[in-house]
């Protein structure tokens, strides 16, 4: 029995190590990055997130500059996105799963797809975000946690041969942030809420890319 067990495990371990070695040998050095071309044009804007307000400024720039790396730096690893009103509507449509388990990886993937669909200097699409960065009386800020509430306006334009179809997402987002020693301030919870007079909000737009 013991012999059978050893052969059993060793064969499997050997097979796995062999496959991994083959993968390793067939790849180029995984720890060297590609070289880059010298830049043209504009570049991204990012400040060290030493205050909660700077995180939102970084988020705004990342969105308008379509810079997914800078966008990801605004989110903590335990990030959650929530849109209660839109979730209820999605449940009404029988499509509630769209808002389930919306964590940092999901948010990054969705935003990256949006950036890729609305690239900078495109002839066929345009997307522009405005966030009112001024302080809100309902903001709360402690030594290591903060809640900032901001209204936004996201303009989405799809150009066709004859016309330009414009959609505007309007609403209010509540950002719960926390400070960590190494990465500074980042967003733990982003709750989105539509404007009373405009049914289409940021969460609706993002949900289309999930």
């Amino acid at each position, binding site marked *: 029995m013991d012999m059978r*067990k050893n052969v*059993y*495990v060793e064969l*499997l*371990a050997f097979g*796995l*190590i062999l496959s*991994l070695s083959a993968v390793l040998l067939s790849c180029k050095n*995984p*720890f*060297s*990055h*590609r070289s*880059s*071309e*010298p*830049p043209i*044009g504009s*570049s*991204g*804007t*990012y400040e*060290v997130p*030493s205050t909660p307000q700077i995180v939102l400024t970084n988020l705004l720039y990342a969105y308008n500059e379509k*810079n*997914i*790396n*800078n966008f990801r730096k605004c989110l903590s690893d335990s990030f959650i996105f929530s849109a*209660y*009103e839109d979730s*209820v*509507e999605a*449940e*009404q*449509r*029988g*499509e509630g799963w769209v808002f389930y388990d919306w964590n940092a990886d999901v948010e990054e993937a969705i935003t990256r*797809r949006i*950036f*890729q*669909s609305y*690239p900078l200097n495109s002839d066929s699409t345009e997307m522009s975000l405005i966030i009112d960065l001024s*302080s809100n009386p*309902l903001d*709360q800020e*402690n030594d290591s946690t903060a809640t900032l*509430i901001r*209204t936004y306006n996201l303009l*989405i334009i*799809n150009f066709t041969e004859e016309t330009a*179809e414009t959609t505007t997402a309007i*609403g209010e987002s509540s950002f719960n942030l926390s400070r960590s020693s*190494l*990465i*500074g301030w980042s967003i733990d919870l982003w709750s989105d*809420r539509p*404007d*009373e*007079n405009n049914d289409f909000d940021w969460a609706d737009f993002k949900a*289309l890319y999930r």
Partner: protein
Amino acid sequence: MKRYFYYNLLFKFTLAFAILLPYSNISVKSAEGSTFTTVFDQDNQTYRWDGSLLYEYSSRGKLSFSLDSKLQSTLIKRSLLVGGNNQWQEDGKAKASILYSFNPRLGISVDFSEAYNVLGNQKILQSEIIGVSKYKPNQWLSLDYGLGGAVSTRRGQMGKKRDRGINMSWNGILNPKILNADIFRITLNIDEEIYRNIPSNSISLSGFFLKSFQSGDSISFNYSGTSGKKKFYSSSYTLAGINNQEKNEHNFEGTIVKNLPLNFEIEASSEILFNSYRYRANDTSAVIGDVSNRDNSRLSEDYYLKLKRNFKIFNMPIDTYASYRTSGYNENFAQDERDENSAYGELGGGFSIALTNHDSVSTDFFTSVRSFYHPAQYSHQNDRDVESEILNMNYLRIWSKYLMTRTHFNYRNFHQIYIYKEASADNNRNYTYLFAPEIIWIVSNWITVNQYFEIQANYITYDYEKNILSSRNRIFRRSYSRTEMAISVSDNLKTHIEYGYRYEDYGQLIFDEQWKQLTSWDRRNNLGGVGFDYYPSKQLKISPEYSFEYKREWTHSEEESITSADTTFTKLRVLSDRQDQRIISLELNYEFAELQNLTFLIQRRIINGWRRGHIRDDIFTVSLRRFF
């Protein structure tokens, strides 16, 4: 307002019920592990009620019963909403189950469930009843079949939609004792919701195998897969069309742990995920909302190899490890510009060593590169690599049973490299250094002092801007000191005092033969507090607390003075913001028994700041948790 009073009354009633229940004659002796919790929470923007009840009853014989219910109601005041009115949110669900076992092999159950979500005028109500027959012909096979009915009502601003139908489910679990496995389980699940408008069905298959050996070796595999179809409405309008989703999800995981000669141990694991979603719509006119644009599939793979060895050098025990991870994914969307492929490689390692009985050191390091690729004709300018280096070091020294020091050092470097010229101007390195020593001193049986320091520097340098005077290169520096003292005045009175000071500055980083900082602002925080825990009796704790935070921020600039002889620069430092925050709170905690308590908390926060003005926040919370 009527609704407010209704909930207020309901809350008071449930609270009183929960407090009185254990002392009344209606407590049920046969209840097993039943719990009741309720929380009322109020601040300047919201009122919130949470309640849950879990009740389980078993008659030792053939009948058992359970009730599980949750309710959360939130009133959001108009001040928090964009130009709106007060808004109610309610989520509630309740499930009651009755199970009757004819014998150990055969039983039946009936489940009733009710769930609702309410948001203003929008309401979703779902009711379901299902009867399940449970058959377990032997130890390695169990079969369930469920049949029931369901009604779903969706009411919104655009009208009301009602749907009803039949629910069916088949579940089979096969648990044979073969291959000498510790666990070998195959599960098959088929669900069918035959609604009139939006039916759905799914079939799931999963298998799990685990075998452990006395030597510590083990092998495990897990597979789960689901295929299904579902219809859903294209919008919230009453006359909305119907969309279809077809999904396929497959997940495979495997892990082998094997002890090798010379005290080595190897762990190899892998995870492969494949998801595919296809959508069909009967209305394809929308440019943004065309559901078929969401068609996608994604294959991701992750392989991990770890080699460990525990050994001794000069009688010092050392644990070491080295690891390698490679992973990646490929996406395929209906719209190609959304696609992204990625590859990742990570090399890591570390050790922990007990140098003496009083000294121990541990270190971990990781270096990795993640590459992202895109279809060349669409989004190739998003092609990028992220190179990372992480080092963590910890040193612990126990000087005596009264004195201990801990020292932590952390280094991180993220190098972001966009490959193409359209975005490569943003290529940068982000370095962080952190050094944090800590002293823990037990002065006596009743006084403990903790002193913590932290120094951090964060540099961001752009690859193509090293020698540009007006570059975006930046440095952020931070130091922090915190002193905490815990004093046990008596068995009934404990107190803690804390004081902290934080210094931060930020500015441009200029390269002139060496890096120099041009400070643009600095900030100083003084924070602290004092709190007491007073126990008038064993069950009751009274905890008043006061804390403060004073923040000051200065901006730096230069004033240029031109005279006929010379030009001089005067550095200016101007106070640009000040904010004082004070928090006073009182908490009362009454413990009926372990993990059963009634808590009251009231808190007032006052903020005075140049930018934020005067703000006052009040918070009130009451919560109750009881077992019966």
